């Protein structure tokens, strides 16, 4: 039943995008250009004419492919998750509580961001590059890491959105947390920090969204994939738990309005 609902939601969301192809095209193209420029800038700074940094190249390509694929797929197919905090603050979660379905699931499929299609396309291009330029095994590892990263990003959005249950203007705090995690995930932080700084990095959501999945791609052995799997699943379950606790103390938006 849930998969049928997901299928319907995807069809409706795509119908919405198809009704405004200029919007979809401009959004996706804008994001592709944005990503290309960003990567070009980092290439110029880190790799162009710098053989000393060559050992970082594979890590950086894998990181970019994994993060863009996961970010793009979660935002395109389950775009409502990123707006969970706004939905709670604006009282839009209430209609979703009146159905027997899971409110997180309903919130997730309620929206699709056309702009994320650009990220997804770039990510898939990156995965293809890893598959053909390095090795098919690395390509499959990146694909699996993207799945773990997607789960972790979904967990991040749920956790960030749930802050709205506990704090006033929590949606702003949630957006800040997402922004910080995305920045920590798109720069090669896994290679930038050592010692106590790395331990601190592993305590942030960026560990589950980027650092551990890409470490698992780079390093040999299933141990690293198990650690990344544990981090992504653990973070997702933790976030859902926080959402449930927040939901149990949720008050109608009309009451929040009166208190304002």
């Amino acid at each position, binding site marked *: 039943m849930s998969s049928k609902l997901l299928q319907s939601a995807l069809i409706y969301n795509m119908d919405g995008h198809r009704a405004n192809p200029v919007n979809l095209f401009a959004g996706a193209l804008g994001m592709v250009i944005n990503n290309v420029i960003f990567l070009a800038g*980092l290439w110029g700074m880190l790799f*162009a004419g710098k053989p000393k940094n060559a050992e970082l190249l594979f890590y950086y390509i894998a990181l970019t492919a994994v993060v863009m694929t996961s970010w793009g797929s979660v935002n395109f197919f389950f775009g409502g998750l990123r707006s969970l905090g706004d939905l709670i603050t604006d009282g839009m979660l209430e209609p979703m509580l009146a159905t027997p379905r899971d409110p997180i699931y309903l919130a997730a499929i309620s929206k699709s961001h056309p702009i994320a299609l650009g990220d997804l396309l770039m990510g898939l291009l990156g995965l293809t590059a890893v598959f053909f330029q390095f090795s098919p095994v690395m390509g499959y590892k990146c694909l699996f890491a993207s799945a773990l990263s997607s789960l972790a990003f979904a967990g991040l959005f749920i956790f960030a959105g749930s802050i709205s249950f506990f704090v006033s203007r929590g949606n702003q705090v949630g957006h800040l947390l997402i922004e910080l995690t995305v920045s920590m995930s798109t720069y090669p932080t896994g290679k930038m920090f050592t010692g106590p700084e790395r331990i601190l990095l592993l305590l942030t959501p960026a560990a589950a969204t980027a650092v551990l999945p890409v470490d698992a791609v780079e390093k040999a052995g299933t141990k690293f994939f198990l650690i990344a799997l544990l981090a992504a699943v653990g973070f997702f379950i933790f976030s859902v738990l926080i959402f449930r606790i927040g939901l149990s103390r949720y008050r109608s938006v009309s009451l929040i309005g009166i208190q304002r």
Partner: protein
Amino acid sequence: MKYTILKAGKSVRFHLKHGLFNFSEQFSDLTSGIAGFLLFPFYIWLITKLWEKFNAYQGNYTLQEILLYIGITEILFMTFLSPTSLSRSSADFSLSLARPRSWLGMSFSGLYGRCLGSRITYIIIFIIIMPLFGIKVLDTLNVAIRLCYLLPFLGIVQAMFGLGFASGQVLWAETSYFVIPVSKIFLALGGVFGPLTDFGESWRTVLLKLPPSDIFFQPAHYCIKGEFYHISKATWAGRIVAICFFLWIANLLFYRQARLHHQGYGG
């Protein structure tokens, strides 16, 4: 003749007041911008770490200089092409058609005032946080004062860019998707990630010749070292004037088209 001069004088006074109003507005609701203010030191720290790990070996800058450099470029970038500011500029276009004042003039003074106000807010935060990164207070103040010299000129460029997007918004109804890529051009190719002098060849030579370098890298380098990189003050000023001239022509073209093809919501 006397009437025209009087009218022009009144108009200038109006736009100065309008700019000042938009400038002061940036200090009236600082709490709502708290997220942006928290991101500011975070980006300084993160990008400095990136530089320290992969570019410090080149020896063009010390760690303290890089912290200050990234601080300056982040001030310039975080206040560059703000979507809220652009929306405000294009929002009252229909009304402006019935006003005796120039929409271009009003939008320009508004954008200029908001840009200057927000940059001064960030400079205040910069002065507070830099000593926490281990930079001497005197060095921080020195750099901040140098940046203040340049702000009036950089504000013109910023307002011109903003005006282009505001006119574009009126003309095409939706330009927000292109604000991010355009601002990314300046982020990635203007030296916000790190000084262009640390970029590898042939990127360095090419990027130093492009306008993003004049708007981000050169001002930040001037603030840190007290001089522009391999160009004189006059050359830098000339390049800024040339950029402004080009943007002014583009703005006039966009504005004319926007007036011709504009449809209000009832259109």
